[in-house]
Structure formats: structure tokens, C-alpha cells
């Protein structure tokens, strides 16, 4: 009976499938082929399965969030078109602010405040606001003006960037160029130190910043500062400089530093050219590689960072933090010891434009930004630590958390 039915179906098919129809089919195939050639069709919407659209970004792309439940614990903050957003394990996405041109959100350890940067033409402000998006407070303003100084045009505008909280939620690290004018007095050269340096302030007295890490002249300065969990006096940051010998090759390294060194040794350290600068930072990555964007693990024992591997390809690595190296900076022996953990750094993953790794509060996952389908989006990777070998590795495959494109020039933040 079944056989009969099948033959009947074939008969029906043969009625439909006449030779004449093959020309129609060919034409259809041709049309589809041409459609592919000319890129006709398609849409700007996120087609990633299982995503829920939350907004449309400035590039016209629909931004979506993966709807798989419990992919992570805690809350992840990031920006879309420099508006603050947060997503939770239930994949509820909420826009916290709109229209503020905000960068680099950092949540205080007590969970009350979001420190971030509000950017304007020519300057930016360091602010903090409640985690609900209300009650914004100005900590430091970069507003100023241009003025003529003899033949030179100078300005009193300043940049602020990348705030990071201390463990007790009382201090903030940040980047700024507000000491750029001091360069004139110190060197007699009418070339401002535009390179951003690391400073700290107390929330109770933000008008009195403390120099924390100096920049080398000419390559843009420092980036990515953060306090080391469990070690309140240690910070990490990326140091951009030119090589001291020729001053033509970029040297991009991650530095560890005792935050009290400059304060405790007034007049000893100073910014300068690659060959003349003297600072208490100690390199923990090789000058032969370009390593950037360090992020401490929650226990403060490891650092995830990005290495530029080839043109456009970048890798995320995890290394152990060298211990007891910040107390004696500029000591050749200490400098060698500080590089040892780097040699055994664990490679986690690589990809085009992989960047901005951040640890989950439990230290079991990394969130990072990856470039896929011509957009920058958040991805999650489960991290496994082998206590015997001391090596880190990725468990399973990364999971895409957002689609359609978020801001890659603003570092995300992961909190409980």
C-alpha cells in the first residue's frame, strides 16, 4: 500500500515536473544567483537565532541579546552609541542613560554608583551616578578654552578617561592630561604633554588628585588602569611609548605599580621622553610583543589581557601576577623576575579584533568584545583553571551574548 502511494506521488510529481518547467526553474536559479551577486535583499536586522532585539544602533543595526537563560551570573554593563546598558542573567536588557555620550562604566564595589566619563567636544568630565541612572555627580570637569600664548595656541581643556574603583569604594583611578601645562615649566619646551597619565582621587576630595603613574611623551600615554583585588596598593595599566633607542618603534606593555611610590617619593619620578622618563612602573609583559587591556581576576592572582598577534588578529591570554615586584621598581633583577609569569601565559582564544576582556565576579568566565559579521559584540567564554599545571584554558566554545553591534571603544564592566 505504501509502495503504491509512493508511486502515485511520483506520478503527481511528474505531472508537475514537466520539462518546460525546467526553463522556469533555470530562470529562477539565475535570478537567485544574480541576487546573491548583487547583494540584493538581506536586512540590517539581527538574524542571530535566539536573540531579542533591544534597540537599533546609530549604524542602523538592530542590537539583540541572547535569550538563553543563565548564561552568566551578575550584571554586565556596556554602552551602545555611548548610552549605558545593563543585562542580567535573565537576559533582561535595560538602558540606564540616554543621550549622555558616556564611556567606560565602572560599578563601585558597594554596588551604589556607576563612575563613567561624559564626553564633549574638546573635553570630558569624570562623573558618577547611581546605578539606577539618577543623581549624577561631577567629580572633575575638563571644560576650558583655547588661548594664545605668544606664537603658541594652548588650551585649558582636559580629557578624563577610564575610571576604576578601589575595593573600599572610596577612591577612583582615572586617566587625564590635566597636568599637560606642567610640561612647560618642567622642561622649558613649548610642547604640551598630551599623553594621558594615571591619577587617583578620593570621592570626598576630588579636587586633590594624586599622581599615580606617568606617561612617556608622544605615544598617547597610559590606558586601562585598575586596582588589584586583595592588594590595595597595586595597580595595573597599559603603557604606550616609543622605544628609547630610536624613538620610532612603538612599545606597548602592561605595567604593575605600587600606587604609593610617587606619593612617597616626591620629586623622584617624572614623565618624559622615552629615554628620559623615570617612573615606578614595572613591566610584566615583553617589549617585543604588544600587550594591552589587562583585567585582574576577582581574586587578584591572574590577569587576562589582549595580545596583538597579527594584522587584525588578537588573542586573549591569562597570566599569573608576579608577586613582590612593585616595591623595588627599576631594579634590573626585579625587572627580570617580573617578566617570568608572562612566559607561561595561557592562550585562551584568538580572533579578529578580540578585545576588552573582563572577568565574571566568580572568576569562572570572561566577557570580551569580538568582531563578527562586521559588528563588535559581547561574547562569553568559560574559563577553566588547572591547579596542578597552573594553566588556564577555555571550556567549550564561546557564546555570543549580543548581536548587531555595541561600542568597542568603551570597556564593559561585570559585577555581582
Amino acid at each position, binding site marked *: 500500500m505504501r509502495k503504491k502511494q509512493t508511486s502515485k506521488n511520483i506520478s503527481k510529481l511528474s505531472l508537475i515536473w514537466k520539462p518546460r518547467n525546467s526553463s522556469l526553474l533555470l530562470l529562477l536559479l539565475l535570478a537567485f544567483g544574480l541576487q546573491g551577486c548583487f547583494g540584493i535583499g538581506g536586512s540590517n536586522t539581527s538574524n542571530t537565532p535566539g536573540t531579542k532585539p533591544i534597540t537599533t544602533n546609530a549604524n542602523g543595526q538592530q542590537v539583540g541579546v541572547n535569550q538563553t537563560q543563565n548564561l552568566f551570573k551578575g550584571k554586565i554593563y556596556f554602552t551602545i552609541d555611548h548610552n549605558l546598558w545593563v543585562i542580567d542573567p535573565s537576559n533582561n536588557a535595560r538602558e540606564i542613560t540616554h543621550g549622555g555620550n558616556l564611556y567606560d562604566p565602572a560599578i563601585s564595589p558597594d554596588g551604589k554608583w556607576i563612575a563613567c566619563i561624559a564626553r564633549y567636544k574638546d573635553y570630558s568630565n569624570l562623573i558618577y551616578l547611581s546605578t539606577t541612572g539618577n543623581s549624577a555627580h561631577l567629580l572633575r570637569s575638563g571644560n576650558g578654552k583655547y588661548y594664545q600664548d605668544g606664537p603658541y595656541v594652548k588650551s585649558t581643556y582636559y580629557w578624563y578617561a577610564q575610571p576604576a574603583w578601589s575595593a573600599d569604594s572610596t577612591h577612583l583611578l582615572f586617566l587625564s592630561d590635566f597636568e599637560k601645562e606642567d610640561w612647560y615649566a618642567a622642561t622649558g619646551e613649548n610642547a604640551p604633554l598630551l599623553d594621558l597619565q594615571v591619577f587617583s582621587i578620593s570621592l570626598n576630595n576630588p579636587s586633590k588628585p594624586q599622581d599615580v603613574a606617568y606617561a612617556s611623551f608622544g605615544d598617547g600615554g597610559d590606558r586601562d588602569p585598575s586596582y588589584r583585588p586583595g592588594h590595595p596598593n597595586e595597580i595595573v595599566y597599559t603603557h604606550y611609548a616609543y622605544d628609547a633607542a630610536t624613538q620610532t618603534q612603538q612599545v606597548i606593555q602592561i605595567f604593575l605599580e605600587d600606587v604609593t611610590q610617587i606619593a612617597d617619593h616626591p620629586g623622584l619620578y617624572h614623565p618624559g621622553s622615552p629615554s628620559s622618563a623615570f617612573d615606578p612602573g614595572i613591566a610584566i609583559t615583553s617589549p617585543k610583543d604588544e600587550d594591552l587591556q589587562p583585567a585582574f581576576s576577582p581574586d587578584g592572582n591572574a590577569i587576562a589581557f589582549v595580545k596583538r598577534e597579527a594584522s587584525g588578529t588578537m588573542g586573549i591570554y591569562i597570566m599569573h601576577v608576579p608577586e613582590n615586584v612593585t616595591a623595588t621598581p627599576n631594579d634590573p633583577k626585579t625587572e627580570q623576575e617580573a617578566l617570568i609569569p608572562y612566559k607561561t601565559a595561557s592562550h585562551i582564544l584568538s580572533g579578529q579584533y578580540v578585545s576588552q576582556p573582563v572577568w565574571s565576579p566568580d572568576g569562572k568566565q570572561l566577557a570580551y568584545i569580538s568582531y563578527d559579521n562586521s559588528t*563588535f559584540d559581547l561574547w562569553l567564554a568559560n574559563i577553566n583553571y588547572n591547579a596542578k599545571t597552573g594553566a588556564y584554558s577555555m571550556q567549550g566554545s564561546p557564546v555570543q551574548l549580543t548581536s548587531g553591534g555595541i561600542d568597542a571603544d568603551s570597556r564593559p564592566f561585570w559585577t555581582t
Partner: protein
Amino acid sequence: MAGNAPSAAPPSPSGQFPDTPARGLLSGWNPPQEQAASHLQHANGSALAELATNKQPAVQAQPAPISPAHGPGWYQNLQQPASSWPWGAPPRSQQQLSSPAPFPVQQSPAQRPPAPAASLAPFYSSQGPAPQSSTAAPAGSRNGSAGGPPRGKKKQRKKRRFPMWARVLVAVFGVILLLVGGAAGYLYFTFSPSVNNIVGQQVQRARGEEDPNASRNGADILSGPRINILLLGSDTDEKFTNADGSHSYLAQTDIVVTIDPATKSVGMLSIPRDFYINVPGYGMHKLDEAYALGGVASGNADYSPGGVALSRYTIEQDFGIPINYYAWIGLTGFVQVINTVGGVDVDVTHPITDDNYPDDVGNSKDPYGYMRLYIPPGPQHLDGITALEYVRSRHADLVGDFGRSARQQQVLSALKTKLNNPDIIGKLPTIANDLNGYVKTDMQLSDVFKLMNFARSINPNSINKVILDAPYSSTGTLPGGESVVFPNCAKIVPVISKMFDLGSKAACNIQGSTGNTSVAGVSPASSPQVAPVAEIPQVSSDSLQTASQLASMSMMSLFAGGDQYDFSGIHSLLDLLLLTVFEAPQALQV
């Protein structure tokens, strides 16, 4: 037997009317049947009429003559007596049909169904059943039983039936014809208006200015004597304040590219915008103000023929460099192109800081104002304005132009990725529109195409690039406090003499008769040497020439190979823009 063979398909379109007269003759032909007459009038008559008024491009009109060969006129013509053909003997096709079995079946008009669609008419006329017409297509006509001599059923079917491959082949051929025709029309209607506004924008030379093209006798741009091309880069915001309080535009970029076709050597002279020199008829001014001063007379538009004329004349008069062609670029065009392609994604290699970036794009009203840049390092998306800042900043690297060049390469590479994406085809009209109004040149499209192809073929490092900053000049201030750049003539003359092969004609006539150091209070000298710009005629491009060039650009680039397809020359025009914005030949390596 030949009629039964597969080759017995209808004669090819070209075989139908081998003696088809030229289009002009067709108008004198009067087909006896209404259908044929109306069809021909539609297919050929309208095309002719439109061609005569230059409203229809030649490329679009080409498919039309093919239609009669396929359409209703084809089989109806077969019925005409020889005497009805105005040029004597009937077409060869009709002669063939009168010979034994030249064609499967010759049905009477009553048996033959009317052709519902021009291109498919031959199939229907031979096969019969396709058109659903009860009067013209009796059911029995499919097998030939309703008329004609009785034949074996099997044999008859073989005779009448077209092989499937033939039908598919002709259908595909028809689709291709349709696509080619559509593409030609698309090219014309989409790109021609924009391209017309870009190329062939002649600007009359000032009185007393020598036209170096006069001695070239129409030689190809890459043959004959040396050619010099002035590249002017300008913002499109009103910055320059005139004496009457109105505003006009500056030219921030002044570059002279020189090419010696004989030796294939290329030079590139960048003259600082703040060069304090004599602007003929206006006295001492910064070079970028020549564009503004010339623009006053032509209505203060962003692109002003008067600005081009005075800038060109200033270069010629002050340095003795004859200018064959010019190209004016609006920086906003670059911003718009980047935005149109959806921005570019790059890995910013280090933090970009610049306190003295020119605030000349956007809403700033200060012609010499600065703005501050801070572009964080790392992978990120750059929109048009940020991409422009990233590639233009001169103060973000200790290594000067090397660092800037590396940044430019990043953006160019990202732009190349975008331009090579098939999706870009849909955006080409927008890109052409972006260039429209922001690229102007007196070169023809074919000249730009050849020039850019040539420029892409040479090693950028072999280009003799000279920037007239130190030691060719020094910065200083005028009594009023304005910052300017003073030329060092002793250094400049030998360099330009060699670069432009000027010999003793190289000059440095930078001292003006009227010193005017006030930017806002400028007024022309009493007897300006420059022709009244308002009277300068604009020579618009010939639309047929443009259409022809659009088509040839596409074909040439298609067959030129490589990984770039210069669709309608848009890529070459884009290169011209990039060359001026980046002020570097490396821009052409996209």
C-alpha cells in the same frame, strides 16, 4: 531533412533582418500591419527621438533594434510581398522561407496564434499552444492536424518542437539582454547626473594666465608633455569673513601633482595653506585665502570656479608652475562616503591625542580654530568624522608622517574591505551622490580613470614628494599677531625647478604690491588681474559623452583584472578624493 534537425530552430535574430536599414531608414518604412508598425515605432522610433534630444543614452537604445527580429513584426513580415519592402528584395529570411523546408512549419496567418510577448513570439508561432487565444489557436494546431498537409504524428512533433536546450538558451540570452539593457539604463540614470556635476567642470583662466593645454593639441593625458594637476582640498563650512561681513570658503590643501608621461615620473608638491604670498590682484595673503578671495566674486559657494581660478593663477604667477588641470575636493565628501559605507572598523594602535587639530569640518566658524582629539586605542568603529580625524591628525605620532601614513593605511584597508563587499553595489549610487558636490575637476572621466590607474600602478615610494615646510619655509607672525608661514625662496626655487622641469621659469614671486594682513577686512586691489569670476562660463559635460564614458569605464575596469572593479569610474573619483584628503599617494593603493 535540414528542417527536422535541431538546427531548424528559427533563424537567429541577426539572421532575420540582415539587411535591416540604419535607424534613419526605418522611419521611412511603413509596415502594412498595425501591430508591426506600432511595435517598431515603440522600439525604434522612440529611441531615435530620444537620441536626437540627447535624453536617451546610446547604450540603452541598443537592445531595441533586436526586438523586431523576435517580436510580432518577425512573423508578420513573412507575409509581406516582396514589393512591400521599400528597399527592393525581401529580407533574406523571407527568401529562405520560400525555399524548400527552410523552417519547420509554415502556417497560415489564421492558424498562427498572435504572439503575446515580443521576445517569445517565435516559439509560440511554431509551437502554437502557448497563447491562450481561442480564435487564433485551434486546439488541433499543436499537432498540425487542423491545417497543412497530413503528416505522421511523431514526425510532425519532431519537426515543430524546439529542443529544451534551445529554449533555455534563448530564454537565458533574453534575460542577459534584459540585464545588459537594464544595467546600461541603470548606469545612465543613476550615475550620469552625479558624474556630470563632477567631471568636465571647466574654469576659464584669468587674463594673462597661460593655458598649458593649448600646446598639447588634445594629447592623451598620459602622453605628450608634462602635466601638472592642482589638487585643492576645502572644507564646506563658511569660515572666511569677507569685508562685507559675508563668509566664504578656504582651501586648506594645496597640492600640485606633476607627471612626466615620457619618464613616468611623478612628483607631489604640498604647499602649506598658511604660506604668506602674493595673491594676484589682492596683495599679500595666506595661500588658502586665494580660494576664498576668488570665491567672493562667484557667490561664496563651497565650490567656486572663481576660487579655483585665483588659486590656480596664484600658483602659476608666484612659482611659475603652469597648471593643466585642477581637482577640488570637499572634505565633507570623505566623511559622507565613510558614513555611506557604514563607517570603518580599525584597531587604533595607540591613543591619539592632538590639541591642534584643525577645526574646519562641522559647524565651527573659526577659520583657524583648533579642536582637541582623543581617540582611545584598540579595535573600534569609526564614523566618517572620526575617521577623518584619525587620518588627518599630524600631531599624534612622534614619527610624524610615518605614523600618519600608517593610520591612513588602516582606514584605507578598512575602506577597501567595505568597497569589496558585494553589498556595496547597492550603495554605489549613494557614494556617487556623496561625491557629487564634493569633487570637481576639469578633467574628463576617462582622464581621471587613466590617471588613477596609472597612479595605482606605480610604487608610491618612487614619487618625489616635497612638502614646503622647514627648511623651505619658516613659521612666524604678522604684526597683527596672525600666524603665517614665510616661504624660503632660496630653497624653494631649485626644488620646483627640478620637480616641474621649469628651468629658469621657476619663480618665487611672493611679494605683493598691496599688503593686506587683515583676514576680515580684505578687499581687492584697484586693478585686479583676475578675470571677473562671475562672468566665467561653466562648461557642463556632454551627457552622451558621459554616458559613453560611464559604460567604457565599467567595461575597461571589468577587463582590466585585479581585485577592483571601477564601476562607472566611481572608484577613480573616490581615489581622487582620497589622494587629496590624505595628501599622500599611498591613498591610491586601496
